[in-house]
């Protein structure tokens, strides 16, 4: 029955065994620790999920954490007690980083939960038993802590030829498996029988090193007694024969493929500790709550193996085994070859802790400093995985991880044989571990990057789809709108007889608007052409002048034609309006409104004419200034002045007419615009007068002896004074009007009016101040030139000062009034008239569009023309169009300026 291994593996070393120290004493049973610390991640894979809460009392063997995913495990209470903490705690890990642990305070009752052994396991299916093992928290106890149920689940998919039980325990110092085999031989064999039932292998082999004669003897005895179909194979003592792949090679001669698992070649390998745990779980119904651990090292006087509940702190065990802290050089979890040093003795024993080595300085000296590689090749001789450690070192050092990977870095079992034999004391394994973790990190990053890319692209596709959908909807809506307008247009062409008048009125108005716009456009074109002509004349380009003159003549003709047409249409439209009014006598107001709009249009026209006339006057004056002796120009100037006077008169007439109409309208608010128009006019007059005065002054300064000029200056000054008087009158009128209006208005309405008045007052004040400054300047100039009108100017200055004072007073009053009412929002004052015009134009356009859209919508909703008319929409439309045309005209006029 006892067989020697027929095969071997490459490399391997023979370090001092140091196993006898811990075998002198029998298996110890240390007392229970005060606190058991149970990390949630005692195995490879996902950490377990806690099932208990702080303060909960648990019984021995009660599950306290469940598995969390496929590669995960259960965790059970090692004894009865209370959960006192679930928090981060130091765990046995080379990083020294804390992990979440459940802390159990034992109540020393050691009270078991009801155990449920699988008595009839031989009749149960493999799946049921594997399920049971999973719930018992069994993991591989050899070192890695791979969940046993996962390993065994693989056997269901593959035909298992060999079940190998790893009893080699090749690492120096460790004797935990040896002691287990001596103490629990029958349990081990029965555990193997359970595994045989699960995996159904052709052969079952136990691989054991020849340095454990007692264990071999007892195993032989037990196998014979229990009649188990198990082969015991003794392997020569050589490190690392206990490595899974190495042991497989030793026992079967088969090699596990690179990157593969033993199950791929029909082999399952289990540690003896796992087999005993399986026996406990199946035969006794006990979960994995304790394990055998070796306490050894020269810093411990009572080196021995102990059976400890999981979670027992290392410090507690060291104390139990007479630990001498002064002797300690390094405290290692695991063996000297593959173990790791820990700094904190509060870390607990976990499912994979097979040895605690408290080594003195003599036993484990600090590693010698690293020297340069001398390419001796001893590492290659020692490597049990048949790798090229030297090559891997170069690649690791130069961070060429992909090359290291190509040299099968991941087949390295980190046994440390290469480092052990290295004459340059190069910590080769640490290099490989670094490379491995870097590669793993890069792989995880790549997986994450791919995932992020997929998500990013999915999002992009989604956004694009949404945009396309929106666009499609928009287009559908547009098509629908177009269809409905054509539909609405059809009934509009067939008006009912009673609507005829209204429709024709609106039609006439539309034509009128169109004509007005056309007129404005033509005049703009004409102006431009004239400008161009002027430029051409200056530059002396005769060809261009000729063509431009032709164009201008054409445009003028066009304009006249349009104007004529407009006038005729105007008359027609008024007729139609009247007809409409007659047709609907009860709606008298629109008629007055319409005529009001006509008169206001006239006023506007007059204003524009005035503006044009004054502009041309200015031009003539300029020319006159350049050539003062030109008689023709002088004549022109007089003519222009006459024209201005005419225009002013016309404007006044128009305004009067408008005021009258407003009065007829009877509504008091309408009065205000008239008065403010007068005010505006007065201001404009004043401004013009001031400008003229200034110019005259300038001229006078240039030519102080010119009597004619002096006379003109005096006349201008008179005019200015008159204008000022007019303005003041207008202002007082305005103010009184406003006052009356204020009085009539309700309290809620006072605020905006007040602010308007306030603004007006401020503007007045500013203007008065500016005027006064001008007067001051004039005084200075007059002083310089010693002019006779100095006294008059000074009088003016005094008057101006007085006015400023009164204005300030009134402003203060208003401010006081304003503080009593609600504060109103300030409006940005646009002082640039051209800009103002543009804004007005834009506003008018926007209003027009709005009205048009509304009408469109109403039509779409099926409203008839009559309804539209009664709603005043058509009127509104006409008003808007009127306004737009007016602003366009104004713009044209300002452009000529």
């Amino acid at each position: 029955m006892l067989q020697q291994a027929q095969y071997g593996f490459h490399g391997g070393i023979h370090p001092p065994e140091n196993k006898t120290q811990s075998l002198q004493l029998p298996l110890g049973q240390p007392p229970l620790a005060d606190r058991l610390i149970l990390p949630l991640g005692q195995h490879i894979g996902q950490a377990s999920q806690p099932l208990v809460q702080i303060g909960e009392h648990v019984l021995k063997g009660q599950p306290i954490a469940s598995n969390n995913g496929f590669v995960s495990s259960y965790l059970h209470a090692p004894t009865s007690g209370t959960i006192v903490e679930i928090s981060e705690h130091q765990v046995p890990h080379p990083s020294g980083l804390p992990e979440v642990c459940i802390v159990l305070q034992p109540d020393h009752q050691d009270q078991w939960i009801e155990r449920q052994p699988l008595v009839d396991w031989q009749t149960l299916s493999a799946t049921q038993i594997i399920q049971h093992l999973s719930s018992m928290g069994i993991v591989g106890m050899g070192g890695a802590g791979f969940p046993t149920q996962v390993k065994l689940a693989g056997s269901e998919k593959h035909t298992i030829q060999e079940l190998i039980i790893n009893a080699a325990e090749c690492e120096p110092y460790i004797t935990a498996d040896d002691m287990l085999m001596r103490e629990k031989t029958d349990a081990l064999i029965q555990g193997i029988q359970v595994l045989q039932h699960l995996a159904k292998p052709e052969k079952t082999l136990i691989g054991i090193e020849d340095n454990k004669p007692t264990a071999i003897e007892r195993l032989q005895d037990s196998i014979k007694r229990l009649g188990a179909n198990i082969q015991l194979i003794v392997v020569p003592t050589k490190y690392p024969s206990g490595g899974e792949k190495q042991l497989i090679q030793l026992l079967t001669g088969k090699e596990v493929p690179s990157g593969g698992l033993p199950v791929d070649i029909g082999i399952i390998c289990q540690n003896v500790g796992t087999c005993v745990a399986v026996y406990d779980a199946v035969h006794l119904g006990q979960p994995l709550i304790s394990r055998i651990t070796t306490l050894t090292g020269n810093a411990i006087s009572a080196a021995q193996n102990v059976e400890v509940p999981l979670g027992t702190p290392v410090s507690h065990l060291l104390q139990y085994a007479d630990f001498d802290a002064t002797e300690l050089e390094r405290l290692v979890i695991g063996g000297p070859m593959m173990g790791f040093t820990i700094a904190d003795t509060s870390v607990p024993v976990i499912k994979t802790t097979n040895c605690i080595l408290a080594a003195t300085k003599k036993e484990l000296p600090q590693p010698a400093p690293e020297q340069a590689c001398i390419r001796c090749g001893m590492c290659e001789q020692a490597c049990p995985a048949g790798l090229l450690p030297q090559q891997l070192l170069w690649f690791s050092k130069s961070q060429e991880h992909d090359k290291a990977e190509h040299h099968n870095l991941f087949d390295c079992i980190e046994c440390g044989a290469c480092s052990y034999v290295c004459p340059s004391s190069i910590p080769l394994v640490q290099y490989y571990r670094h490379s491995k973790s870097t590669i793993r990190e890069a792989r995880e990053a790549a997986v994450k990057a791919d995932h992020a890319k997929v998500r990013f692209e999915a999002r992009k596709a989604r956004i694009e789809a949404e945009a396309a959908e929106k666009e499609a909807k928009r287009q559908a809506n547009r098509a629908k709108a177009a269809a409905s307008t054509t539909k609405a247009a059809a009934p509009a062409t067939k008006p009912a007889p009673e609507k005829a008048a209204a429709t024709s009125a609106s039609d006439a108005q539309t034509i009128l608007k169109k004509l007005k716009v056309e007129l404005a456009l033509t005049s703009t074109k004409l102006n431009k052409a004239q400008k161009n002509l002027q430029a051409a004349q200056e530059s002396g380009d005769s060809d261009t002048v000729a063509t431009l003159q032709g164009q201008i003549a054409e445009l003028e003709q066009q304009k006249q034609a349009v104007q004529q047409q407009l006038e005729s249409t105007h008359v027609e439209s008024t007729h139609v309006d009247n007809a409409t009014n007659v047709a609907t006598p009860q709606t008298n107001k629109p008629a007055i409104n319409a005529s009001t709009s006509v008169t206001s249009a006239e006023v506007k026209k007059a204003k524009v004419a005035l503006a044009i006339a004054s502009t041309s006057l200015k031009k003539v004056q300029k020319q006159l200034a350049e050539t003062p002796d030109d008689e023709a120009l002088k004549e022109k100037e007089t003519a222009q002045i006459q024209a201005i006077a005419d225009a002013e008169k016309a404007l006044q007439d128009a305004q009067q007419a408008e005021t009258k109409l407003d009065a007829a309208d009877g509504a008091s608010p309408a009065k205000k615009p008239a008065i403010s128009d007068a005010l505006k006019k007065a201001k404009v007059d004043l401004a013009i007068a001031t400008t003229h005065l200034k110019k005259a002054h300038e001229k006078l300064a240039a030519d102080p002896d010119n009597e004619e000029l002096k006379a003109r200056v005096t006349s201008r000054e008179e005019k200015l004074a008159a204008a000022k008087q007019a303005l003041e009158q207008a202002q007082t009128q305005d103010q009184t009007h406003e006052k009356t209006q204020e009085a009539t208005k309700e309290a809620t309405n006072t605020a905006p009016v007040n602010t308007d008045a306030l603004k007006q007052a401020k503007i007045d004040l500013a203007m008065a101040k500016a005027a006064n400054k001008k007067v001051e300047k004039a005084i200075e100039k007059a002083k310089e030139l010693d002019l006779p009108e100095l006294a008059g100017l000074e009088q003016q200055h005094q008057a101006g000062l007085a006015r400023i004072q009164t204005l300030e007073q009134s402003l203060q009053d208003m401010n006081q009034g304003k503080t009593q009412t609600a504060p109103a929002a300030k409006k940005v004052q646009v002082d640039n008239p051209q800009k103002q015009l543009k804004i007005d134009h834009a506003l008018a356009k926007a209003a027009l569009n709005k009205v048009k859209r509304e009408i469109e919508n109403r039509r779409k909703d099926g409203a008839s023309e009559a309804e539209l008319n009664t709603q005043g929409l058509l009127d509104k439309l006409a008003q808007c169009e009127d306004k737009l045309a007016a602003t366009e005209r104004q713009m044209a006029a300002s452009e000529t300026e």
Partner: protein
Amino acid sequence: MTAVLLAIGTLLIFALIFGGILGYASIRFHVEGDPIVDQIDALLPQTQCGQCGHPGCRPYAEAIANGEEINRCPPGGQATIQALADLLDVEALPLDSDGAEEQPKRVAIIREDECIGCTKCIQACPVDAILGAAKQMHTVIADECTGCDLCVDPCPVDCIDMEEIAVTSKTWGWELPTGVAANIIATDKTPKVEAY
């Protein structure tokens, strides 16, 4: 003379025959190579953060393919630059990204009690890693977050923090040993190794 002409003629005929075969094979057995943009894109970290000045990783990959510098990706860091340099056979340059430095991996965390539910961060997230609805609290799916911090600026109440991802025992890796350079005259200090 005829022998020379014969030889030249023979070789010419051979050349024509083999040229024809090769020409046919190059068309018939044409292998669609991995376009360079895809290869570059595969090396970029896919954080979609836009720190390179391009709206995502793929646009930057396209820009690199069209000759842009390879050193404008702070999340990828020097490792990505090296990989790109190897791929494109150009010199690896130091990172240049207008002040943005190579930072440790980070994740966005929303301070949830301060979130007003404006959904602005959701719209900014290039990988849909933020969950929430209008006027509902939002939260970051940490596993999906690439740490690009594009959600930080749009937040009107500044309730998004970028936190470094802490190293756990699962993500921890072994350090590279210091090497020989650190102990060049080490022989003097080598402790005497005694027999056991």
